[in-house]
């Protein structure tokens, strides 16, 4: 079992619901300070978005963030360089599209991520069926490959995905891309479908934009992922202190 999953299972065992904020790497020069601030604010793990030109699973906010970051010259290498040494105090999970790893070289990419402290990867366009080469090279590192499940996922696929995912299972609350619809939609049904076949920690994401929603969703699951809502504040000029408060507000709601 990858260390990420060990960590997250332990967290769950303490009764604490996980809060996982998402950041677009490179979107501002001080993005790593935002990451650190989030941890201070109460984040349990951090998603690090690596910008891709064609983010098929993302809505306008993250698209915009990706474009800004790309325009600033962000690459896997620049991100890893900035992360290396900057201990954040919470597990880091890369989130990006498969082409970047494919183009970088799977083995090389896994190695580079791992070397800079990343312990998980979410690749939304990497289907279970196509994931073997990637999972194989990850086996030589401590990177957990996290799969998504969705309201449209069939019972059979729930089973395979829940048993293959590492670290946690990412439960899309809605049939939507990031940042598009708000609310936790089908979260209960999706989480329960995972739980029916596996005891892997299951976090709800996609559409969690307010502390109240986060609280509701976390009550039905093991944690929540907050993406576009946070990225949006950073795009509008939020400081690391703002980020800390933003995350803290979610923390408080969840822990209420």
């Amino acid at each position, binding site marked *: 079992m990858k260390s990420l999953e060990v960590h997250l299972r332990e967290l769950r065992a303490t009764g604490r619901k996980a809060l996982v904020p998402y950041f677009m790497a490179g979107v501002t020069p001080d993005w790593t300070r935002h990451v650190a601030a989030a941890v201070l604010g109460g984040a349990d793990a951090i998603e690090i978005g690596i910008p*891709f030109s*064609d983010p098929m699973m993302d809505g306008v906010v993250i698209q915009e963030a990706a474009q800004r970051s790309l325009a600033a010259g962000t690459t896997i290498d620049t991100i890893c360089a900035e992360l290396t040494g900057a201990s954040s105090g919470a597990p880091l999970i890369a989130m990006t599209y498969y082409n970047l790893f*494919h183009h970088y070289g799977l083995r090389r990419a896994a190695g580079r991520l791992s070397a800079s402290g990343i312990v998980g990867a979410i690749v939304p*366009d990497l289907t279970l069926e196509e994931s073997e080469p990637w999972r194989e090279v990850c086996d030589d590192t401590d990177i957990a490959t996290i799969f998504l499940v969705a309201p449209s996922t069939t019972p059979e696929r729930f089973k395979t995905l829940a048993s293959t995912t590492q670290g946690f299972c990412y439960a899309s609350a809605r049939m939507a*891309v990031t940042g598009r619809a708000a609310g936790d939609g089908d979260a209960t049904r999706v989480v329960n479908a995972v739980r029916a076949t596996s005891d892997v920690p299951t976090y709800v994401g996609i559409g969690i934009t307010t502390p109240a929603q986060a609280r509701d969703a976390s009550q039905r699951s093991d944690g929540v992922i907050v993406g576009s809502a946070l990225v949006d504040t950073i795009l509008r000029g939020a400081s690391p202190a703002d980020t800390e408060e933003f995350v803290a507000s979610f923390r408080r709601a969840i822990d209420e």
Partner: protein
Amino acid sequence: MSQRSDYMGIPSSTGHFGDFGGRFVPEALMPACLELEAAFIDAWADPVFIDEYRTVLQEFGGRPTPVTYLGRFSKKFGVEVFAKREDLAHTGSHKINNVVGQTLLTRRMGKARVIAETGAGQHGVATATAAARLGLECTVFMGEVDTQRQVLNVFRMELLGSKVVPVTSGSKTLKDAVNEAMREWVTCVQDTHYCLGSVMGPHPFPWMVREFQSIIGHEASEQLARRGVGVPDMVVACVGGGSNAAGIFAGFANTTARLVGVEAAGGAAVSNGSPGVLHGMKSMLIQSEHGQIEEAHSISAGLDYPGIGPEHAYLAAAGRAEYFGMGDEEVLVALQTLSELEGIIPALESAHAVAWIMQEAGKAIPRGSTVLLNMSGRGDKDVAQVRDILRGRE
């Protein structure tokens, strides 16, 4: 010349053509891809479905399209050129073959709505057309830049009862329209079919679209046989995503004919690209050193795509088909030459294939060879643009 008997058959169960193809989509879309695959396999084995598909293409779509011997062009260039006239199909290009198939399948799956992406608007107009005929709701995603360049095609789609949504993300062109259509599909996959416009995307699209387009090659093969020409020495088609090329290649993949795909020089995914993953498939892509997808650049909007269908990537890797790029300049000359000599104004896309023949006649194409050219579409849509370019030079 390699000659195996198993090119362009059924892909692997995961939708792979050699190293290419597959499915790279959000999990939310996987069930829809699987459902579509099953529905297509079922329909394509059902004589009733096939009969309706063929009948609609005949009675509505104008098939079979003829094969025209280009007498004056042939004489001038010293090769015997026959053109498969997809420009005469309803809506002006081969795109109708695919959308007729997919809309019939949509109805068969019990879905009431289609979405589609479009670049210049050809696939969008074709989809709107086929949807109107069946009374399906239709939304077309089109890069905002393209909606401004192609106001008339936007209006055509609206006339046909479709909604056109301008896409403002990324480069605001075709590849972003695909992204946006995929994003939309995630939200409505229950009652909506994504009518993809070329042999690209996740399995089963590359295979399904090729099957729906293969009527081009099968017709042409029969027509040339009936005319006593037999198997041509060469089959030449332009390649954007690669659907018209796949369609005509399918009739000759397991013959001695050389297969040539002509890409836009500014979007030559095979010649200038490298393997990668985009829009649900693994294929050859134009990308930066960091794996960011680059914009293609071509005078012809229909070839302005940074990728190519995965089966083409495979045919290229396997050496069964060859791919070349042609520049805008040569394409303009080819369009004018064919118009003047034969009374056929080709689409700028199709003019890439014409240009390659003009360039290679007597060279890569030995004198006297028989060449089957896929005239994938008519040039009417391009006339304003060509006029502006040529006038701008006067």
